């Protein structure tokens, strides 16, 4: 059996590992990866120097050799011929396969503003881009972040920790539009301003230009900003272009079934590039989050290794911390059709939003000081309630009145009993070091 893994991110590496865990007889695995495999999640900690660069790599050359993986690192897949089961790389090399996994992820896109491709403007998505930002952010420098979304917020602490001055620019009237609601955004905004971060929401950048070794941002209205570094985090796009004519069905991503299989039976897709089932809504979706990539990769890998594993779907979840204020959201936290209970304690600050469909929790948001939220079991319990879909019965009314008192509802609804048999691969997970070595 010849497996081809295209993409060395979270989905691809989890697939490789799972193939080695699950296969009955040793197969041939080839990895094509444009970059050395690393974890995007930990780049913010490389940015603030709390870890060395070596810490970001997930599958080193030595580990891939131990797993007996043939590698084409530094090469991109240029096209896929699913009829002939052949992948052509950007250097013209061709690789035949018996089955393959499309896991080419996504990349940062910049707002279509004149000057956005200038030398003082950076994205923060790949390791190379992270290196570019690291070289520029220094004490006393003024960093302007364009885009107040999740990616910006993951590096906000790092930029402040490095002693830089920070201004956040957002075209929408408020920050974090895809992660929290207006009330939550207002709390975070006030919190950031109290910590010395300037915020310009509802501000449309019209031009980015050089200003004597600094960079000037011009706006549709309001004063210019002159800064030293511009980080543009205005969104990501799925890396699909190379699949033109491949014969897989592409919508917002490569459409996959409950086995992570595309419409071509020996072609799988996983991670940011795959459009798979959402656990809560049941609808096909592209999450572009790490936990979805991890689960996709493992399920695809198990099926590629010959097991028959079906996937219940991915749960949307995010957590970000800004200046010791934690914000997390789960599931359909933005569902206008859901019955919504909120709780606000402005003085702490603490905010909750619970979204019900019938008597089941289908979405949740939690916001609070780090020193508060981790003295409770609530963050994970909210995830567990959404993941398990346990019927809450009379606890629903209790939570309407007591949105901060999640724990008795979780325990007395026997959520643990519902969750304990759940595993992604139908067996206990193995520890990271316990993957069998290929022979």
């Amino acid at each position: 059996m010849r497996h081809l893994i295209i993409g060395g991110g979270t989905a691809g590496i989890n697939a490789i590992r799972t193939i080695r865990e699950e296969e009955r007889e040793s197969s041939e695995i080839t990895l094509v990866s444009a970059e050395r495999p690393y974890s995007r999640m930990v780049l913010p900690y490389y940015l603030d120097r709390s870890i060395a660069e070596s810490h970001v790599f997930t599958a080193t050359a030595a580990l891939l050799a131990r797993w007996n993986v043939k590698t084409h690192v530094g090469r991109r897949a240029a096209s896929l011929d699913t009829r002939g089961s052949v992948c052509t790389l950007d250097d013209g090399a061709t690789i035949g396969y018996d089955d393959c996994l499309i896991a080419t992820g996504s990349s940062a896109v910049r707002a279509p503003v004149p000057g956005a491709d200038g030398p003082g403007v950076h994205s923060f998505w790949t390791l190379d881009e992270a290196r570019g930002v690291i070289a520029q952010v220094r004490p006393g420098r003024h960093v302007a972040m364009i885009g107040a979304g999740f990616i910006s917020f993951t590096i906000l602490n790092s930029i402040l920790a490095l002693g830089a001055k920070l201004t956040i620019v957002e075209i929408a009237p408020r920050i974090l539009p895809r992660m929290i609601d207006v009330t939550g955004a207002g709390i975070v905004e006030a919190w950031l301003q109290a910590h010395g971060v300037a915020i310009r929401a509802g501000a449309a950048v019209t031009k980015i230009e050089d200003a004597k070794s600094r960079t000037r941002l011009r706006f549709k209205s309001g004063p210019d900003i002159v800064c030293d570094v511009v980080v543009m985090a205005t969104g990501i796009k799925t890396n699909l272009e190379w699949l033109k004519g491949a014969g897989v069905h592409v919508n917002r991503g490569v459409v996959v079934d409950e086995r992570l299989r595309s419409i071509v039976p020996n072609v799988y897709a996983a991670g940011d590039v795959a459009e798979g089932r959402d656990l809560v809504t049941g609808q096909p979706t592209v999450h572009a989050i790490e936990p979805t990539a991890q689960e996709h990769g493992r399920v695809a890998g198990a099926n590629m290794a010959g097991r028959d594993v079906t996937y219940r779907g991915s749960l949307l979840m995010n957590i970000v911390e800004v200046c010791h204020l934690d914000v997390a959201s789960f599931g359909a936290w933005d569902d206008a059709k859901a019955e919504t209970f909120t709780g606000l304690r402005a003085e702490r600050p603490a905010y909750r939003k619970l979204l019900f469909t019938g008597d089941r929790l289908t979405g949740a948001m939690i916001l609070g000081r780090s020193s508060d939220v981790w003295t409770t079991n609530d963050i994970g319990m909210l995830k567990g309630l959404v993941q398990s879909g346990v019927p809450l019965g009379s606890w629903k009314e209790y939570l309407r009145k007591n949105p901060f008192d999640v724990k008795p509802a979780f325990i007395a609804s026997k959520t643990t009993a519902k969750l304990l048999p759940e595993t992604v691969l139908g067996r206990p997970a193995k520890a990271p070091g316990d993957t069998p070595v290929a022979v």
Partner: protein
Amino acid sequence: MRVLALHPEKCTGCLRCELACSYMQTGEFKPAKSVIRVSPFEGHTSYSPYTCTQCAEGWCMTACPVGAITINAAGAKDVVDDRCVGCKLCTIACPYGTMFYDPDTRKAFKCDLCGGAPACADACPTAAITYEDTATTDWIGDFARERTARLLVVG
């Protein structure tokens, strides 16, 4: 595998388990840093401890992007501090709410069964927490359901 068995009907709510746990985990008596936590039920007339089940999936372990959560000699999912960067993915992946983050150390922390000699079980004066070779289960769900029934009716 030996796990922490919880017997809520024996729990008096004395919180010695929390003190012992935080002392083992951090060297200080700080219940806020304990990974076993006692909850009151029925208007503070009943209590139960609650902690990590060491579940089969190990949602925290599979979620960790840098392989910082492993299985220790006691069979517990355990955070390797030198690997953990503090990204908190494990805390939102764990559906039981038993994965925590310490703002002081900037690391995730959880029940590691004290490496095979759990301090909470040692400290419990009523054997409401025992360390037994048994299958993990929902130890306190039925108890909590019964001891909250009146609360829900009164609302």
